[in-house]
């Protein structure tokens, strides 16, 4: 699957899965696994296409560090703004993912076509 479709699909499915698990109040192992996956993958995957990388290895390299960095930055912003809570954090991350996907969609296609 091309990364133009792959990463949005991953982000949407992962975000929805975590949202459902949290909304239903389910706890335990599944929620931890979904949360870890979401934190490690989704913010980075939603924005990686914007970077114009044409190398799949580089995309894979970038996703987890970028995700962790964005989670840390959003969390830091909320803490220093004295508005940190689980709800605010999750909403902000979902908004970031959505914004990243929209931005990726509007990046001109010609710029995203790669050789590898």
């Amino acid at each position: 699957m091309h990364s133009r479709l792959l990463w949005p699909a991953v982000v949407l499915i992962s975000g929805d899965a975590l949202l459902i698990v949290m909304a239903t109040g389910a706890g335990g192992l599944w929620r931890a696994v979904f949360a870890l996956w979401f934190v490690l993958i989704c913010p980075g995957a939603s924005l990686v296409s914007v970077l114009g990388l044409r190398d799949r290895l580089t995309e894979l390299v970038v996703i987890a560090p970028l995700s962790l960095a964005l989670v840390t930055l959003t969390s830091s912003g909320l803490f220093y703004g004295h508005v940190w809570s689980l709800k605010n954090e999750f909403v902000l991350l979902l908004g970031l993912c959505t914004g990243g996907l929209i931005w990726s969609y509007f990046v001109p296609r010609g710029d995203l076509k790669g050789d590898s």
Partner: protein
Amino acid sequence: MVSAPTGVQPTLLPAKDRPRRPPILEQMRFLVLPIAAVALWASSLPGIHFGAMNDLGLVSVLPWQTWVAFAVLTLSFVLCWRRADRMAWLLLVHVLLLIVMLYELPAFVTHEPIGPIVFRHTGITENLIRTGAVNTRIDAYFSWPGFFMGLAALVKLAGVPNALSFAIWATVAFNLLYLPPLLLLTRALTRDPRLRWGAIWVFYAANWINQDYLAPQAFTYLFYLTILALLLTYLQPRGTDLSGAGRLVRRSRALLRVRDPDIPMPAVSRWTAPGIVALVIILYTVSVTSHQLMPFVILFSVAALVATGQCSARGLPLLMAVILAVWFIFVAHSYISGHIAQLLEQFGNVSQAASANVTSRIGGSALHLIVIRERLLLTGGLWLLALVGGIRRFRGGYADYAAATLGLAPLLLFGLQAYGGEMLLRIYFFMLPFAAFFAAAALLPGRVSGTAAPSRLPTAHRPGFPSLRVGSGTLRVDLSAVTFGLIAAILLGGCILARYGNERLDYFPPDELAATRFLYEHAQPGSTLAVERQYLPWKYRGYEQYQYLSVESMLGEKHPASPAQALGRISQALRPTAGHPAGFVILTRSQRVYAEMLGGVPSQNYLNEFERLLRGSPKFRLVYSSPDAQIYLRLPG
């Protein structure tokens, strides 16, 4: 600021010249040995008894099956490594298995976090979650809280009680996360697949530093590797990229005879270079918010690359320095202003750094001294091997300037400050990817490896076990594989001894963990908790709600307290009064092991006397007792 690399296209061999990939089923037979290694390793786990360790650490209780398992895995890796151009997926499987088998070994046996620091980090995260704010007056951690804030988000999203739920698996998780940037980094350094995979194997087999647990250091190390991998892959100058460079850069390149790398760069778009710089800035900013030391390492490394004309983003170090300065001035100012004299005193004091990092660390019991000396030997051995590899590579005309620059840049940290006597350890950790690269290069046959070497291996390297009866060329390569295997095995064995040499101390038996749980269930916020030495699994909740006192701290004063005086001062500090609940004294096995293993003060005789007085004191009552822990409550009066 950024000049995008131009005019470089990937170099690919014509299809007919590419090595034929053996069918996947044929390669599957190379999984037999790794599977056997895993089976042996798993079968050895029940035979590992942490409670029976001596001061050599984990090696003193490892059954023979564990050693054989690592030997078989190394042998299997070397067999695949000989055909690295065709067996990347198998080599990846071997590296993944090594990561799990080596780094998660204690967790599979104990099912509990190892070492006291992860408990403290859990407490800092719990403080942030509970209060929703950052109080920089608590301690230095709160001036660099980025990692803990991210961890707080993960803990709440995951719905787990605290960060200890992740601590057990953090080591293997971080090491797995390091692998993709390491792959990218080594791909940017050489086209030789054996050198790439050899470097990665050496990296994991020689990482004895044990700085990859749930901590800001491990977290920001991921950013360090990623930043360097991205810069070397996308922003190394090629062709005309340096036409606008300053005279200084051009002179330093001429002086050091720096040549352009001949590694093909991935295809880029017009967004790539600005995108990479933006990404680097994001990762660097998070490093600045999370760790005291790592921002300096990254800054020095990037500045060294720019100064030697090996990074086309010439404004990057300045931007990084500005971010660092802003953080120091506006966020970490309370810590900096409180410690400015201490920091300035250590700055540039190399003799003090040498004393704190080497001399003062050589001490302890006879068995522990063996571990310490083995660590020094392992470190020196790897650096010597890297030096040999570096000399071979440069004499062979390979353009490894970036690897050499980045390998040497962390040495600048040595005179910065002693970092609690841990600076040399950290320097080893930061140098490791590049030391591993050159060490692996030392073990390769010279004419086959190199950036300019063809990406396929000679046809004599057919799949199969090593043969010594074929022509001289094959014999030479087989001997290099044997040498690599032997050195890799020695490094791995040395790493197990060095990495897990403190395990007797760092292992907290269930009794100790139960005792601290009891403590937090009964100690009211505001009370004082006293110990002999602050080496126990505590502070994971109510981080700022208790006062802490240790006998050890009383012995660091100008007039050290006698055991009776120490007990008197503790008795006074723990006495219940209005608004100050009764305190507790906690004695655990690990505090005693610390004195036995590492020596120092308080001595064992001192502790024996202190405990005798405590047991006989009418002001204290024993409220918890188990073979590994006792807790005394301070009575009124």
